[in-house]
């Protein structure tokens, strides 16, 4: 109970914007997860590639900002993972990555 109260009152806790900014960014992760099973034609190559660079930069930002923001860091690590996966799905759909079927056929 005491540690929970400490969290509530911390400088990066839920009474501050340092908490809600990163919470809002988890929306990107949720959106990415929701879009995981959509057909690759619906994925925006522009947006997904931009997100990959964006999350990489913001991982560093979260580390360097005052106060240091681990919640934001966790969010961008997750988003990077999800967006890289979506990017690979898009690339495969566009024919940029060799389909796995060909590798099995040539063996």
């Amino acid at each position, binding site marked *: 109970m005491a540690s929970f109260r400490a969290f509530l009152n911390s400088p990066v806790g839920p009474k501050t*914007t340092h908490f809600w*900014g990163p919470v809002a960014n988890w929306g990107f992760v949720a*959106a990415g997860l*929701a879009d995981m099973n959509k057909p690759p034609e*619906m994925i*925006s190559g522009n*947006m997904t590639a931009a997100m990959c660079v964006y999350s990489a930069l*913001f991982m560093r930002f979260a580390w*360097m*900002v005052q106060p240091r923001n681990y919640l934001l860091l966790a969010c961008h690590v997750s988003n990077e993972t999800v967006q890289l996966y979506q990017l690979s799905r898009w690339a495969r759909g566009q024919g940029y990555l060799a389909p796995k079927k060909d590798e099995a056929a040539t063996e």
Partner: protein
Amino acid sequence: MANPKLQALWNHPAGPKTIHFWAPTFKWGLTIANILDSAKPPEKLSYPQQSALASTGLIWARYSAVITPKNWNLLSVSFAMSVTAMYQLSRKIQHDLSTKNQEVAIEEE
């Protein structure tokens, strides 16, 4: 040799030698990507993604004003991102409403 004002900018705590500069600068890339996607047909837009962009943009505009160092670049780009996302949302909603009306009209015939 260098203009002192330029030097001050170069050495600023949120200046080009720091992540506080490049992270928000790149966020403009996200905004521009979204603007480029205005050319896409509304069926291809993603409700979850655009809603996330719109809401985080607004919250981050607030966040940028209270972190150390205060980051006006991040504030402006977050707000711009939110506006482009709201535009995309309105495009998709309008499209979905009009196709729904068309379907209803066809059924009624």
